[in-house]
């Protein structure tokens, strides 16, 4: 038997919207069985996972807080992904961004200049871009695969972070624990919504999303990038190059990730520590694809992904779910979504005739 997937010619919008609904229903059904088998309160677990993040101002504000870095990084990555430049190392670029931003408060822990914060943000963004720029340079000059290079640069970034926190940058009054001093107020982002932890970096992330949308839809540069990545030869005939697509994609991706890192240390963390990121750089890859690599789609997917993470944490607290069960649920949701999308976009053709 031979199974082939044939792309459907036309898709109606309602069908596309059905994909998340089908995915959610299947994931819920499977997890209900799983949670019940574990002897956990399945109803409470699903409530915590799916609904509670949207109940009440506090929960929503926490979703917004987590959504910021996811959205920022995913917008940067999507620019590259659309041009077939695969930056997998946003995690490392985030770490370097966080490091560069932290340099100022670490060396000026009593600093109170109003210029400190803008300088930190700029240093973080440039640091992230420079880190990604290494991969761009190696790709353009030596044709080194950017997937591997960005990924391995993440391992190096982690070691640089460890070195600084265990050595020159550790808090002199912190009993040798691997973390920096806590930042002065001048190094912290202002809170956007009083009473919550949401800071003004959320606005920056939304602004970046708007810019990304404009660039993709209305600017020739976006088109050049797309062609440069997708069809390098055609692009060369038209006068714009693959190298440009690689540079722009990686630099912008690194810039956003670095910015996100700076906003984390200047935001909810308030110091540089080893767990500066809980995998935002990797989760953002999923966010970018779930959002269909579309800047508007990414805003929605970042919000939902953040809610999913927070729901998972809630379920551990309220429904006594083990952390592994939470990961299983989150994985199920993504797998079912991708599967239903595939079936909606393609027709499955079963060919029973045996070949000679």
């Amino acid at each position, binding site marked *: 038997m031979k199974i082939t997937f044939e792309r459907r010619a036309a898709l109606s919008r309602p069908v596309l919207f059905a994909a998340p609904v089908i995915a959610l229903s299947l994931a819920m059904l499977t997890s209900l069985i799983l949670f019940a088998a574990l002897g956990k309160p399945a109803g409470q677990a699903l409530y915590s996972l799916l609904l509670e993040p949207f109940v009440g101002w*506090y929960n929503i504000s*926490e979703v917004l*807080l*987590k959504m910021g870095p996811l959205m920022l990084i995913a917008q940067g990555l999507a620019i590259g992904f659309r041009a077939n430049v695969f930056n997998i190392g946003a995690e490392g670029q985030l770490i370097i961004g966080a490091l560069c931003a932290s340099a100022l408060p670490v060396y000026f822990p009593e600093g109170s200049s109003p210029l400190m914060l803008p300088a930190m943000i700029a240093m973080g963004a440039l640091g992230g871009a420079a880190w990604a720029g290494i991969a761009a340079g190696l790709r353009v000059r030596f044709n080194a695969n950017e997937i591997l290079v960005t990924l391995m640069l993440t391992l190096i970034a982690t070691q640089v972070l*460890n070195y600084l926190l*265990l*050595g020159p940058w550790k808090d002199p009054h912190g*009993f*040798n*624990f*691997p*973390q920096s001093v*806590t930042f002065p107020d001048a190094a912290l982002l202002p809170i956007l919504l009083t009473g919550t*932890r949401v800071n003004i970096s959320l606005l920056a992330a939304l602004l970046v999303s708007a810019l990304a949308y404009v660039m993709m839809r209305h600017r020739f540069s976006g088109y050049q990038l797309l062609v440069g990545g997708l069809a390098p030869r055609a692009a060369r005939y038209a006068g714009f190059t693959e190298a440009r697509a690689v540079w722009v994609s990686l630099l912008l991706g690194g810039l956003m990730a670095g910015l996100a890192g700076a906003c*984390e240390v200047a935001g*909810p*963390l*308030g110091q540089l*520590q*080893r*767990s*500066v990121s*809980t995998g935002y750089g990797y989760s953002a890859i999923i966010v970018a694809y779930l959002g269909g690599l579309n800047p508007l789609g990414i805003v929605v997917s970042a919000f939902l992904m953040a809610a999913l993470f*927070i729901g998972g*944490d*809630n379920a*551990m*607290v*309220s429904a*006594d779910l*083990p*952390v592994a069960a939470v990961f299983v649920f989150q994985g199920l949701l993504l797998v079912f979504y991708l599967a239903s999308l595939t079936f909606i976009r393609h027709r499955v053709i079963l060919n029973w005739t045996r070949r000679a």
Partner: protein
Amino acid sequence: MSLNRRSFLKTSLAASTALALPMPAFAADVLNVALIVPSPAADVGWSHTLELGTKALEAKYGDKVKVTLLENIAEGPDADRIMNKTAADGTTFLILGSFGYMEGGLKLAKAHPEMSILHASGYKTAENFSPFGARYYQGTYLMGMAAASLTKSKKLGCVGAFAIPELITSINAFTLGAQSVDPSIEVSVVWVNSWFDPASEQQAAKALISQGVDVIFSNAQDTPSVIQTAEEAGVYAFNLNSSMKAYAPTKYLGVVGTDWAPYFLQSVEAHLAGTFAGASAWLSMADKCVFVADWNPDIPADIVAKITEMQAAIESGAFSPFTGPITNQDGAEQVAAGVTLGDDMILSMDWHVKGVTTPLPK
């Protein structure tokens, strides 16, 4: 909160019920306890012993206590949110199983005076926020004596997680204990900078063995990697917290164990009685928190007798491993003869004793 009629009624109603009901009505309620740990709660190691401590609460209070274990929680904004969530869900007794939860935990303690919070390995205290830790050094001193009796190369080794005072004191006491049996003993240290990294821990143990080390101290690893590597190479090894004898049936030197049950029970009792007061608790052998067990049968009988005697002296408070004269790594006198270091000096220790050959990372 704006004071409208409904909320006023609610509050005054609640207040009047609280006043009218006798105290035992509260005791009939279920106490919600939460334990937050940074690593997965495995079958061995630090998180596991904390979990065992909460099991003692369940054993004593039965249905009157509900323990929620929150494992693998990264230190930082996520942990802060999860702590808030436990409070919102009615947890009033919270155990934070890692140093990195300190700032978030303090904020929570301030916002929720009704909560009592225990915080592992920290150094800040508040009215309802108690840092706690174990005096591992009391046990590692005894392990040092045992190690000195078994080593042939006179070289001992240690795989350490992080160069924080808690671990530095353990290594220093281990070295002093060994030198009390044989002054020529030297100790080398490899820091892996992780609580949980089996591959690096294994490499570190192998590196020590290749340098001729024949007894290894697995200092605060949450995995049995070091112990397993030592068994395969035929060198002795011991670790902290919970026994890993199953991973090294022939070469297991012993364990410096921790039992958190007495401290947790006592703290919960105080919490229920309304007398919980934040204070640093640095628990010792006398507190029944630190213990030594699973001694290897290869240790000569005369050393076993000496260890038993020393253990009794430590438990009774007659002897402290950090009693001078103690010389530091640079050869300078750190503790004068006859002087015993106070707790504050031990808790902030940032120097190695003479005989530890690896310089301390600065």
